[in-house]
């Protein structure tokens, strides 16, 4: 229970269906003296909202401490990725390593049959397995950030909001008299808050990584203050002014070079996914892929290259495939699997 309306409604729905419900707020991030943060999500006031909802629903409620695994598995990874010139997705890492790993294990120790969250996604139970599907309410579909869940994990998970729209969720919250009914959704990276994530990264890594900004002909256009300031597809902060806008096309961390080019240089038709996982094993027909959270579904073909690496070929090239983000493969609404987009793709680009 983050203290938002979605997880509040999940608790309310399950309770009204007669389940034996326990509310948990995961404390993921903390200030220097161990206090709950004051900005972003998971703030002290959010956990207070969650506590009030749990009290209203008359369910046991706990704040449990995951700061160590979150810091190690999510925040350190976030910083590492930027330092490597990649574009991280901390929500995916958090789901993989904290929510549906550490937390799920703890829930099992407490003899809970299922962990339910306020994610918008759908689980379909078949005779022999569980499938993960996009939420019926596509505007809010969050299956992308859940792609790493396997059928055997889904067996222990519930997403009660998979068939409900956001306005309906707010209505249910209002009907249940929950104070979070009209609370604004949080869009921030929870541990960065409203601050610029680059300031956050700057404070935590050695920024003596300044180097050249290089255009497609190989000539130096200017200097940059560190590769972590850039991500592939970025326009802001590139020198050059007049004429065609320029975009970051590739980041070479070892040589501290940021390559820029025209928009067409960002066109990608094939790339690789690493650390690939499948919900129920690979499929090859009628596939599409999302290369960012809630982005367009692009028709594609896939081929396993090694045990964990997948080659993706798009039927139509696209802009803005950013290394570090995840490629998530669907067959219609059925989520097949996904993995992290590697930086290899840009080596095929002209620079």
């Amino acid at each position, binding site marked *: 229970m983050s203290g938002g309306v979605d997880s509040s409604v999940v608790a309310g729905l399950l309770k009204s269906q007669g389940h034996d419900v*326990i509310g948990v*707020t995961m*404390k993921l991030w903390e200030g220097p003296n*161990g*206090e*709950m943060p004051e900005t972003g999500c998971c703030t*002290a006031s959010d*956990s*207070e909202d969650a*506590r009030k909802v749990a009290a209203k629903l008359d369910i*046991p409620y*706990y*704040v*449990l*401490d995951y700061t160590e695994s979150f810091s190690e598995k999510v925040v350190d990874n976030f910083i590492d990725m930027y330092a490597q010139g990649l574009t991280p997705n901390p929500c995916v890492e958090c789901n993989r390593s904290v929510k549906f790993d550490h937390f799920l294990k*703890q829930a099992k*120790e*407490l*003899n809970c049959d299922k962990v339910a969250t306020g994610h918008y996604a759908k689980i379909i139970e078949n005779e022999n397995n569980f499938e993960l599907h996009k939420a019926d309410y596509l505007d809010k579909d969050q299956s992308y950030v859940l792609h790493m869940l396997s059928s055997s994990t889904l067996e222990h998970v519930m997403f009660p909001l998979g068939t409900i729209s956001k306005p309906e969720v707010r209505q249910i919250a209002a009907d249940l008299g929950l104070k979070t009914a009209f609370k604004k959704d949080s869009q921030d990276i929870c541990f960065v808050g409203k601050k610029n994530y680059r300031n956050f990264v700057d404070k935590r890594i050695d920024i003596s990584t300044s180097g050249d900004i290089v255009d497609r002909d190989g000539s130096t256009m200017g200097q940059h203050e560190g590769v972590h300031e850039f991500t592939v597809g970025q326009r802001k902060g590139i020198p050059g002014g007049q004429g065609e806008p320029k975009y970051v096309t590739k980041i070479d961390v070892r040589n501290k070079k940021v390559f820029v080019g025209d928009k067409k240089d960002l066109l990608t038709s094939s790339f690789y996914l690493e650390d690939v996982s499948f919900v129920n094993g690979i499929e090859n027909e009628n596939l599409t892929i999302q290369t960012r959270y809630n982005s367009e579904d692009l028709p594609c073909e896939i081929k396993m290259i090694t045990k964990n690496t997948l080659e993706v070929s798009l039927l139509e090239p696209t802009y803005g495939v950013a290394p570090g983000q995840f490629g998530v493969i669907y067959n219609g609404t059925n989520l097949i699997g996904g993995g992290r987009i590697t930086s290899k793709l840009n080596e095929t680009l002209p620079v």
Partner: protein
Amino acid sequence: MKKDEYLYLDHAASTPMREVAFEVYKYTESVAFANSAGGHALSRKAKNILEESRDSIANHFGAAPKEITFTSGGTEADNWIIKMPFINNKNKNAELVTSQIEHEAVLGSAEWVESLGYKVHLTPCDKDGVIKADDVLKNVNKNTEIISIMLGNNETGVVQPIKEISQALKELDSEYIFHSDVVQAVANRKLDFHNIGIQSAAISGHKIGGPKGVGIMFLSSEVKLPSFLHGGKQELERRAGTVNVSGVASLSAALDEQQNSMIVQNQKILNERSEFEKKLWNSLDVMVVGDTVDRLDHISNIQFSEINSETLMVALDLKGLGVSRGSACASGAQKPSHVLQAMKVSNEKINSHLRFSFGWNTNVGDGIKAADIVLSVIKGMS
């Protein structure tokens, strides 16, 4: 589970109010609600109840009534005594000697003193949680303003050698305040402050069956300290703020009952704790903190081998047993204990401890009942 089936073993955090404390509170608030500092008949009545309570409380601790000041709780008393000697202190080299295992009220005040630029010595403890008198004494010098060492630790119950320290301090030719946070120790020790050799002490009402929001500061008549709260001249002109007369009277009644029944009470608590520890000891791989040293009767801090105490605490709560782990923070998430860290408990084991604490209304059989819940919960977790 029904509320009355809930087994409460967190008395060291707060113990329920005694029936007599409830009655006295209600009575005082109804017949003597007036401000005790006023000049009319109802104020005189309140003032009289206040001073009778002060006399009675002072008597329990071998102190003079004027050595007793009522505060909002143990935390205020600790803050007052530790901070005030450093306000406008002309000696820039003034020092504070305390320990790593103090209650947060003392450690937080010490941190504040340090932030003003004064030197603070945090005395370590040994692996059993005992502070060695010599380790305290070696940091005491002519610049020492105050020495603050707790009597019984709130997390482990381990008793500290206060008398040994006070006797050694007497040999030194220097001026200092020897303060002790006796909040936990008061629960099951009879204390004569002058005899122990301390100049000040902090006591909390709700740890002995009195109400929350009222506490006692003992300050020996030899010591003068500036006021902490300024305003009206209440409490012998030491502390501003309308005195919580009903709270004080209620605390005094609770203390009377507690002190007068202590021998019987302690025996019952000790029996229950022994049964509890024995049963766990016989069935599980556990370690009882401080079981070979002097320990307050009501606290049992247990290290469970290879069990995460956060999960265990939740599982016990769900089965109707309320205990605690480390110190609570605002959100309810609990951090590893600074006391166990000071005892050099390893990182793997520090998250395997729970504190079970017994109290005045613990029933015969509760120890075994608690152990049975722990055993069944642990069986269910694996």
